[in-house]
C-alpha cells in the first residue's frame, strides 16, 4: 500500500510538472486532469471513496472538459491558447 501511495505521489508530481512545463496548453490540461485522477487513487488509499468519486468525476472529468471547451473556442477564434 505504502508503495502504491508513493508511486501515486510521484505520478501526481510528475504530471503536475508536465502540466506546468509543457508548451502546449492542451497537454497541460490533460496533465492536470491526470493529477486529479492520480489524486483520486490516493483518496481511495486514504479510505475516502466519496472524495475519490467526486475528484474523478468533477476534478478530472468535468473540469478537463470545461478547459477543452474554452480552449477550443479560443483556438478557433485565432488564439494560440
Amino acid at each position, binding site marked *: 500500500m505504502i508503495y502504491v501511495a508513493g508511486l501515486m505521489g510521484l505520478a501526481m508530481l510528475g504530471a503536475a510538472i508536465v502540466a506546468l512545463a509543457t508548451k502546449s496548453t492542451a497537454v497541460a490540461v490533460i496533465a492536470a486532469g491526470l493529477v486529479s485522477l492520480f489524486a483520486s487513487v490516493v483518496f481511495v488509499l486514504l479510505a475516502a471513496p466519496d472524495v475519490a468519486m467526486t475528484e474523478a*468525476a468533477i476534478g478530472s472529468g468535468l473540469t478537463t472538459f470545461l478547459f477543452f471547451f474554452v480552449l477550443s*473556442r479560443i483556438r478557433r477564434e485565432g488564439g494560440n491558447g
Partner: protein
Amino acid sequence: MVRAFVTLVFVAILGLAFGRLALDYVPDAALNQTAVHYAELTPPETGAQNVVAAIIVTYRGLDTLGEVTVLFLTAAIVALVLAQTSGPTKGRGSGLLPSGELLQTGTRMLTPLILLFGIYVFVNGHLTPGGGFQGGAILASAALLLLLADPVRRFSHRLLSWVESGSGVFYVLIGVFGLFLAGGFLDNRILPLGDFGSIFSAGAIPLIYALIGLKVGAEFSSILESLEEAEDH
C-alpha cells in the same frame, strides 16, 4: 526573470512553512471528539450509513447549501460574463470533436443509461459512496455527450432553469421545514428515519441528495451550454 526568482523565493519560504506544518503533524491515535460523535451517533441521529453523507447533508447541511449555491452562482455568472462578450459569429459550438454518425447513435443509446446511473448514485448517497454531487456530475456528463453529439442542438433553457430553481427552492423549503417541524434548519428528521440501511431511510437525506443531484446536474449543464452558445449573444 526577476519576478520568477522572487516568486521562487516566496514559494520556497511558503514551502518552509508548509514543511513545518507537515513535520509537526502527528496523526491522531484515535478519532477526536467530533469524529467520535459522528461515528457513534450518525445512525441513531440521522439514520444514514454513509457518515460522510450524513455530515454533508445534515450536520454540515448549511455548508452544502452554500456549495450548491456556489454552482448556482457560477452558472449564473458564467452566463453573465459570456453575455457581455460580443465576438465573431462565424462558427458554432466548441467544435471539440467532429460529431459523426457513430457518436450520435452512441449518444442516443448511452444517454438514458448515464442518466439512470446518475440517479442511482445520488439516491443511494446515504448508503454507499457517492451522492448528490457525484450523481449530478454524471447527469451533466450526459448533457455533455448530447452537446458533443449535436452542437447545434440546445437543451431547453427553460427546462434547465426550472429544474435548477425548483430543486433549489425545494431544498431551502426543506430546510425551513426542519426549522418548524424538527430541531433546526436542514434537520433531516422531518421525515421518519426508517430502517437503517434501506433506501427509504435516513429521513430527508435521500430527498435532499436527489435535489442536490438534480440541481448540480442542471447547473453543470447550464454552464456547459453557456460556454457553448456564448457567441449567439
